[in-house]
């Protein structure tokens, strides 16, 4: 998928810039079904973090409940993880982010976890532009409770139950966008290279980076008539425009024809190169155009993948809050305790 060859060199064979190997980014053995899309997503996260020189222990991993929500246990073993309760991952992540602004936060959720019980928290996390990667492993069903339709199941899609979905399927990208997320992308667990590029972009971005990843459930929703099956995804994907993520360490000199490629600077100094597709492709931060493109694709029965929206200017929650640079959890009594004089003063005011 990458249209520019990566020119990033590893310091030593098999190790990244931190001298860590890929295995340092792995997690516990997966207990998911063989062939589950979620395992591919975990692998892509391992890959992206490894290539981005992410310090594994400087990551906080979050999830709700579901097969997808189990996956944070299956990558980054040296990170702390928090498998919380169903649908409430966003709030737990919010608190953690408030408590320490210096870690990289990765939240993994499922379509059941996010689009049903977690809808409110999802929308509000987007609205606050929390500085995190929020990834939904979207299989259109409730895997862990044995295959019920989720709210992202498309109208007419048929899972293993054999009954066609009769309700409107929610588009999480559109909802995230409409709620204030500053980065919105969609991918497919079977398209690792695109997914890794999107993950790197999301990691480099400061703000709420939402990725909706079609991740088939082989056990309950990989039927011929399912719109979340491997086959269907492979056949119905439209790519919004290839992208290449260029980490800030690497000096780049690239040849590209003016106007064909859009260049975006990310907060950590990285650069993003985007191929422009079609003549009606709007600017990356044109919300109206992005929504229109998504809805048009949906109407045409297609799935639009790639980076769909990016606004690097939108302040994240800490910026809005004007939080001090030192993480709040690092402040000790010296910095936090207002002193006995102040207390005496306050007592005097109340008497």
């Amino acid at each position, binding site marked *: 998928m990458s249209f520019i060859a990566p020119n990033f060199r590893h310091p030593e064979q098999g190790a990244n810039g931190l001298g860590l190997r890929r295995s340092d980014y792995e997690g516990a053995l997966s207990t998911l079904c063989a062939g589950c899309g979620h395992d591919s997503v975990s692998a892509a996260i391992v890959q992206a973090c490894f290539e981005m020189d992410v310090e594994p222990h400087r990551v906080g991993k979050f999830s709700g409940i579901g097969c997808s929500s189990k996956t944070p246990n299956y990558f980054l073993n*040296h990170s702390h993880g928090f498998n919380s309760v169903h649908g409430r991952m966003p709030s737990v992540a919010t*608190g953690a*982010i408030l*408590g320490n602004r210096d870690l990289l936060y990765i939240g993994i959720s499922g379509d059941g976890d996010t689009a049903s019980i977690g809808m*409110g928290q999802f929308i509000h996390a987007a609205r606050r532009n929390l500085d995190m990667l929020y990834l939904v492993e979207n299989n259109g069903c409730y895997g862990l409770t044995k295959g019920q339709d989720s709210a992202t199941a498309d109208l007419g899609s048929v899972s293993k139950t054999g009954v066609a979905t009769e309700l409107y399927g929610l588009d999480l990208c559109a909802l995230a966008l409409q709620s204030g997320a500053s980065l919105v992308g969609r991918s497919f667990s079977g398209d690792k290279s695109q997914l890794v590029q999107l993950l790197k972009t999301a990691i480099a971005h400061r703000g709420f980076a939402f990725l909706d990843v079609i991740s088939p459930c082989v056990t309950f929703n990989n039927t011929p008539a399912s719109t979340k099956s491997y086959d269907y995804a492979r056949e119905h994907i439209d790519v919004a425009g290839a992208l290449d993520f260029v980490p800030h360490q690497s000096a780049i000199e690239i040849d590209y024809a003016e106007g064909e490629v859009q260049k975006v600077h990310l907060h950590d100094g990285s650069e993003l190169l985007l191929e422009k597709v079609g003549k009606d492709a709007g600017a990356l931060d044109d919300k109206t155009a992005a929504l229109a493109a998504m809805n048009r694709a949906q109407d045409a029965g297609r799935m639009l993948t790639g980076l769909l929206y990016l606004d690097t200017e939108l302040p994240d929650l800490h910026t809005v809050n004007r939080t*001090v640079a030192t993480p709040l959890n690092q402040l000790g009594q010296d910095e936090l305790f207002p002193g006995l004089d102040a*207390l005496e003063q306050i007592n005097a005011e109340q008497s």
Partner: protein
Amino acid sequence: MTAPLSAVNEFVVCIANVNGTGSASANALFAKAVFAGGVPVAPKNIFPSNIQGLPTWFEVRISEAGHLGRRGDIDIMVGVNAQSLEADYAQVRPGGYFLYDSTKQLPQHFAREDITHYGVPLTALSADHFSDMRQRQLLSNTVYVGALAALFGMDLDRIKGQLARQFAGKERLIDANALALDLGHDYVRQHYGSDSCGLKIRELEPASERILMTGNSALGLGAVYAGATVMAWYPITPSTSVAEAFEAYCRRLRRTEDGEKRYAVIQAEDELAALGMVIGANWNGARGFTATSGPGISLMNEFFGLAYFAEVPAVVVNVQRAGPSTGMPTRTQQSDVLLSAYASHGDTKHPLLFPSDPAECFTAMADAFDLADRAQTPVLVMVDLDLGMNEYLSAPLAWPEGRSYDRGKVLDADALENLSERYGRYLDVDGDGIAWRTWPGSHPDKGAFFTRGTSRDRYAAYTERSEAYSDNMERLLRKWETIKTLVPEATLEHGDGEAEIGLICYGTSLLSTLEAVRGFDVPIDVLRLRAFPFSPNVGEFIARHRTVMLIEQNRDAQMRTLLVNELEIAPGLIHPVLHYDGMPIPANTIAEQMQRILRRTGIQVLDKEDVAA
């Protein structure tokens, strides 16, 4: 004919008004001025669950003797609300006084002969002197404060001094209010002289330093002093002002020179999210808390279970109001005790703290954070609307010299570096049921673990093995035993502990309980609970007294359930004294129920008023 009441520094004033008319500042001015003169006061704001146009009452108990619970009847009523005038008028005690707005005439049938009437043309006086419509309405309230000052023989300068403090920096407001005070004061002097009212306020040299503050302000400030950095909340009466106080004090005390914040306050999307955020912050090593009321506690049940089982500290302030359901949002109760103690499905228990006044509220926050960190579990600070939203007389807020934050068992980078054994998040190395935790990001390759609400082994690895599950649940019980040694002890508030009759109370029932006790001429001991689980002296107290009564403000005797259940006490040994109509518990309600219980148990006592009668 009843003789007019006559009392010095011992009476109850009630101001019956309409909400949304700005009476709050005039009312506060009156109460604060009395207090500034050294006289103990207990103001209670009784307001409706709406914003404008419904009846609201401001009841001030003035008591040199320190009886600051609700008495339940009115010596002098200021009746300025047409909607409730009839009922307000009826409520005045025989011999009492009634002050009304005589701009319009009082209807004919307001003709009680057993009370004294004072007509003061509040609206007219205000209209004559102020042009702005909104100001006229506001200041007509200040006029009655001036009138009361004249009746009670208060020093007008004292009130004006208080005025200057209250509106510091807003000179125009000060001047206008001072004028309004004079108008009311002078009108009464001219028309009724200075001796017509038998109720008087005489300034005192206060025995000790005291403050007047709402519990919620003290809780908010307590959290600042306790080192809380994250506050997540969702608006709900009567807890909202905890968040407001925390934020206001942080703005004042916790910003860098260039305005950066050493804190974050987030208005969450609901209470589930609020507690989720608190759990996330504490998991990450920042002290975080939330404040809510009954409906919020109900919504937080699942998260309480998670924090209990995953062992993440969390502090939750529960400012109780009258339940169940939406109930009466602006009325007080102690009716979330049972749910708070056992919140969540499955086998769970949570420590509760019960402060009784603002100074204790302040300290309770430090205690709650220390306990939550040490025991790695959610801790609830239980107050109620009465304490939370009313100005309470209290000892000054105090922080013991040298008290430092107890962050509990946390392995930092150095400790992890030096660790020789394998780190186990849920390994009970010290035998107290509490294992060592680590904060994310501390060490490159030691100490990371996966937190979850599902069963895991001592090394935090997922398991469904029955033995690992039971092992963990039993360790949590050991931890509960440890917690018993960490919570504040119950305190003996009255008596020498040798009486036959023992009363137990907690929170805002204390003052009325003490007042009720003073009406009996037999020895009575009063024990005040300050925490759940119970300190050992609670069981001892119950065992030592022939008749034990438990005073609480709910229908189902919820604390009694906890006592019986946790201390294995026969329920019959604890007689419930209950009050649950949403108003603060009055002393006479307690006294009456005590009488009944004593009679039933065969103990013959007369209360002092009976003796006097």
